[in-house]
């Protein structure tokens, strides 16, 4: 799954530390999400979308390999 967290975070003017503090998670969690190593839970993704004033789909984008069955 691709994501635009880093891009939107920079647009909002947040540092990784600040975003981590706002979401109540660690900075490592933000780094992992931005690098695509870790997918956040649905609730964290929705809170993130709310913070960025966007929809979840605008921040997290599904890729072909994410589908269990080929479309």
């Amino acid at each position, binding site marked *: 799954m691709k994501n635009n967290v880093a891009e939107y975070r920079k647009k909002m003017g947040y540092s990784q530390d600040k975003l981590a503090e706002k979401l*109540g*998670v*660690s900075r*490592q*969690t933000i780094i*992992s999400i931005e690098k695509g*190593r*870790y997918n*956040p*839970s649905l609730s*964290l993704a929705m809170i993130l979308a709310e913070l960025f004033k966007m929809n979840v789909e605008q921040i997290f984008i599904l890729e072909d390999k994410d589908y269990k069955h080929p479309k």
Partner: protein
Amino acid sequence: MAGFIGFTAIMAQSSPPGMFYMMIAMAVVTFSMAYLYPQFIQKDERMKLIRQKGIMASFVAMIIYFIFFTTALQFNWIDAPAYYLFQVFGALMISTVFISFVIYARLY
């Protein structure tokens, strides 16, 4: 301490005493906790995932150790007293849990 015991065992050309393995395991725990503590102190969902995956991986590893030790004893591949095997098995279990936490903390 563990290094000293290991060294003396090598010098005496014998296998190290059982407590040597437990000391190595304690050293692994200490170093792992030093690495993990700043991350584990934050109880966020990434740490929950690391714990969950680490425990699952160690469970699988323990089953493998158990099968190996049982088979090895059954077919007399290893000739060691039960006390010695318990120490090795215990040390392996302790090390595996913490090493798997460190590996998953590096991955995620």
